[in-house]
Each structure stands twice: as structure tokens, then as C-alpha cells.
């Protein structure tokens, strides 16, 4: 019976400790103006994306040629309408969804593939490392967007295919960073100590190396989200990505560019949405990197 109570106490202590960690992290976030700004932007974008049907004042794909190219603030259209009479605000709101889906899923899967490759290359070294890293080198020698376009040209257009191509191109930066982290960690004494204890190799990797990779992974992922969102917009802008009439920021820019001299609002507002979102993510990512760097934490 006494053991149970000890266990309970320990459990409570653990939960409290986790809570304390989150509370102190939140406190530090509130104190950092840029970090907080980034966080609020991300939060806002997520809410807008999730509740798009509730928030959007009009149907984003419904055309009404009698109301085409209305300037902002006219006829109930806050940000005006495009050349087919579609409400730009509603299209931006729905476009948020595409950007979020792209940002989150591609970063997750690219991270998964890249981490696996990086860990294998870094831990086992030898020919595996050489082969994998040469593949990474070859990929890195091509411009990012060019490679995405090539893969898209092969696979065809559409949301699913652009996600695949972003994953195929995007994993390399993870592999690079994770490999070098693993190289540093595997030479640490506690890994030698596990080996001397007789811990099997795969368990050393999964239980001892991977948990020590979370900090660089979180930071890299948070910065990659904005890169991928911009990449999607670029590809859609070039006509390879999300196809009209589905609203995405990239294809809105693409369609709006023809009217840039007569109707500036077609291209300005989706562009602003893109800028604000990526800026917010980058600010938050920067803050997170500083926060999770243990050497920075020592001063607090």
C-alpha cells in the first residue's frame, strides 16, 4: 500500500513538473514581443483555416460577372472581387487551408524521411553514410523550386502531387542537419555507456539518440513550414500546383498578375496574407530556437 502512495506522489510530482515547464515557457513567450507576435499570427491563421466556412462571407468559388473587379470596400466585398466576381477575402480565407495542409503535412513527412536517413547515415557511417549523403548532395545541388517543378511536371498537377514533390525535395535538409547531430551524439559518453551495458543497437538509436534530436527537429521544422508554404505558392503561381478554381494564395497571385496595373487588390491581398503568415512562423521559429538552446537557457 505504501508503494502505491509513493507512486502516486511521484506521478503528481511529474505532472506538476511538466505543468511548471509549460507555464514558464508561456511566461517567457509573453515577455518576448516578436515570439508572441509570431505565435498570435500562427494561432490566427490556424483558427481562420479551421473555421473557414463560418468566417468567410461569400462562397469562394461562386462567380458573378456582374460584380467583377469591384474595388475593396464596395458592394459588401471588404477586399474587393476578382475578374470573375469572386470575393477575394473569402478566397484568401479558404486559401489558408491549402497553405496549412501543405505546411504541416509536408514538413511532417519530409521530417520523418529526413530524420530516418540522417540517423541511419550518422549512426552506421561507412558506405551507407557515403551513399545517402551523396544523394543528398546531388539533390542540394539543384535549385529547390526547379526540382519541385520537375517532379510536378512528371507527376502532374494537384494538391496531392505538389505535396509529394515537396516531400521528395524537402527531406534532404533534415537529413543533413540530423546526420551531423547524430555524429555528435553518438560519440557522447552516455551512448558508449549504453553500449557497454549491452543495450541493443536499435534501442540505442530509438531510445537514446532520437530523444536528443527533438530540439533541432522542432526548430528546423518550424522554419521549414514557411519555406514549404512559399514553395507551394510559387509552384501554384507558375501553374503547376493547385488548380483553379480551388482558391490557393499562389494561384490567386497567378491569376491576379494580369490585372496588376488596373486592379491592384487582386494581387496585393493574397501576397500580404503570404507575407504575414511566413513572417509569423519565422518569428516564432526564431524564438523557439533561442528558447530551446540549452546554452542560452543557462543565463536565465
Amino acid at each position, binding site marked *: 500500500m505504501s508503494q502505491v502512495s509513493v507512486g502516486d506522489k511521484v506521478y503528481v510530482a511529474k505532472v506538476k513538473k511538466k505543468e511548471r515547464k509549460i507555464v514558464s515557457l508561456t511566461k517567457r513567450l509573453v515577455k518576448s514581443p516578436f515570439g508572441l507576435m509570431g505565435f498570435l499570427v500562427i494561432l490566427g491563421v490556424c483558427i481562420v483555416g479551421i473555421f473557414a466556412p463560418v468566417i468567410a462571407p461569400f462562397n469562394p468559388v461562386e462567380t458573378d460577372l456582374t460584380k467583377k473587379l469591384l474595388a475593396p470596400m464596395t458592394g459588401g466585398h471588404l477586399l474587393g472581387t476578382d475578374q470573375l466576381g469572386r470575393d477575394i477575402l473569402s478566397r484568401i480565407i479558404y486559401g489558408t487551408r491549402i497553405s496549412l495542409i501543405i505546411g504541416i503535412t509536408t514538413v511532417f513527412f519530409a521530417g520523418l524521411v529526413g530524420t530516418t536517413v540522417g540517423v541511419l547515415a550518422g549512426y552506421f557511417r561507412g558506405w551507407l553514410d557515403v551513399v545517402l549523403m551523396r544523394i543528398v548532395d546531388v539533390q542540394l545541388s539543384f535549385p529547390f523550386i526547379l526540382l519541385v517543378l520537375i517532379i510536378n511536371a512528371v507527376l502532374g498537377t494537384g494538391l496531392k502531387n505538389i505535396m509529394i514533390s515537396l516531400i521528395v525535395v524537402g527531406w534532404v535538409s533534415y537529413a543533413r542537419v540530423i546526420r551531423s547531430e547524430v555524429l555528435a551524439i553518438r560519440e557522447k*559518453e*552516455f551512448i*558508449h*555507456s549504453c*553500449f557497454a*551495458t*549491452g543495450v*541493443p543497437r536499435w534501442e540505442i538509436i530509438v531510445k537514446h539518440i532520437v*530523444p536528443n534530436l527533438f530540439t533541432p527537429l522542432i526548430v528546423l521544422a518550424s522554419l521549414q513550414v514557411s519555406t514549404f508554404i512559399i514553395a507551394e505558392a510559387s509552384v501554384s503561381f507558375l501553374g503547376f500546383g493547385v488548380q483553379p478554381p480551388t482558391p490557393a494564395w499562389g494561384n490567386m497571385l497567378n491569376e491576379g498578375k494580369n490585372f496588376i496595373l488596373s486592379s491592384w487588390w487582386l494581387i496585393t491581398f493574397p501576397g500580404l496574407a503570404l507575407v504575414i503568415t511566413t513572417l509569423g512562423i519565422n518569428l516564432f521559429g526564431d524564438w523557439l530556437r533561442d528558447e530551446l538552446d540549452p546554452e542560452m537557457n543557462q543565463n536565465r
Partner: protein
Amino acid sequence: MSDTLLQVKELKKHFAINKGLFKPKAYVKAVDDVSFSVIRGETFGIVGESGCGKSTTGRTILRLNDITSGQVIFDGEDLSKLSYEDMRKARRKLQMVFQDPYASLNPKKTIRQILTEPLRVHGLFTKQEREEKATEIIEIVGLHVSHLDRYPHEFSGGQRQRIGIAKAVILQPDLIIADEPVSALDVSIQSQVINLLLKLQKEFNLTYIFISHDLGVVKHITDRVAVMYLGRIVELAKTEDLYDKPMHPYTQALLSAEPIRHPDEKRERVILKGDVPSPVNPPSGCTFHTRCVSCMEICKTQTPSLAIMEDGRSVACHLYN
């Protein structure tokens, strides 16, 4: 007569250095032809200055490095020939205590996880029993049960080293290789940890290989000592014999460097000239001849082998052959 637990035969560990694509590889002869045996229940010391290969010897016995050549016979089994999986299983009987207690514990694991892991990976006991074992061992090494759910960074160096020792002892191994287990600790903590090691040795009937550069500590706890210089054993003797009457000129110089305990104590200090030669390109003949006070012609050309003296010690020096 006595029960040999570990026998090291002509152990060599050479590290390759790449000097460039078209240049031949150079080798650091970190351990060069080392042989000794360890008797069950004793504490076997390995001393020498930094870079002499004493740590590498310990690590190579445990195959933390690949063995270049030679044999490590543990309890009748040649460890150098075991497959990865067999070696992993054999590690249950051979454990290691590391030098730096700040680096040798995973910062992301609780002490409970650190202590139960060795039992778990060797498939010993049920989960419940493993927890009990961890509770038991943490008290044996002088910590409290409540420490089990803390993380390594919450402990002092001495406490961490106790945890490191507990981690090694929990498997009840036959042999523990302690690689400078106290050199990273304060002097006041050193004695506590050493007393803990001695207590555990009695309690669990352990055999130690104690690697250190601290001559005082080695004198205090070891039964026999091997002195290493540039990857070779130059002298191997019972601890009292060695400290009473060092025979090899290097041992004499090394022991004379030990601080005196009393200001009135008089001792002749042998001061060696020059530096330790590079192990990449060790001197010909006796590796010590460049710094030896009693160097002869033969020392420059012929490598002395370990010769056994009347009192059972072995010395690798031409003075005694």
C-alpha cells in the same frame, strides 16, 4: 592455484589516421602488445600518464573499440571472436564505470530508467522486480529512493558517479572496468566513491580493473599494478612491491612524482627530460630509451620483453635481463 578471470594476450589497438588521399595511412599505436591476467576477486590497477593507452586498453577489452589483434579471454571465452549479439549478451558479466559522470548519463532519462535499463535489455526479472532492484541498489550506493524519479542534471558529480556505479553493479557482473572513476571529482568526494567501490567489491564479490593516473588512489585500493608507457606495459607487480621498490626506470620516475605526505620526508626526485614521444612514430627499441636515465646501447635497437623477476613481478627493461 588462483582463479584467472580475465586474460589479455598480446592485445593491440592501432588507430588509423588518414594523412591524405595518396599518402599511406599512419597508425597511432595506442595499445601495443599488452598482456596481463586478472585474478578473480582482485583489484588490478593500470597506471600511466595521459596518452599512454590505459583507457584505450580498458575500452578495447570491452570492445568499445574494435580490437586490432590479440585475445581477450574472459572466463574461458575469447571475447575478441564473439559476434555482435554474443558480445552484447556477454556484457552482462563485464561492466564499465566511466570517467566523466557529467557525460555518462543520458540527460533525458530518469534515474529509474537509467538503472532498470541494464536489467531490461538483458531480459532479467519482471518489471516489478526490476523496480525493486533499482530501489535496492540506489540505497546501497548511498542515495535515496526519492532520487529515482529525478534527472541526472539534478545531481552533483559525486552523486552521479554513484549512479554510474549503481548502473554497472545492478547486473551483478564479475568484472568492472573503472576508467578513472574518481579523477573528475573533488578530493573529498573521491574518498567516498572509492570507499563505495571497496564496499561493493566485498558485498558482490567483484573484480576490478582500476585505471587511474592517481598514484595515491592506486596504492590504496589495488592488489596488483601494471605501469604503462606509450601503449606498453613496462612493469607489472604486486602493489606493495612496486611502491616499495620500483624497478623499471620509468616506474621510478613516475613514483617519485607522487607528492610526499610529510614535509620532512626525503625522497630523490627523478625528473624526466623531454616529452612523451608520439605514439604514431614510437622510438625504436625500448620506447622509453629517449628519456631514460640509464639508457644503454642495446635499448636503442632491441625491444625488451617482460621478464619475470624472483618476486613474481615482470619488468620490461634491459637492465634486468
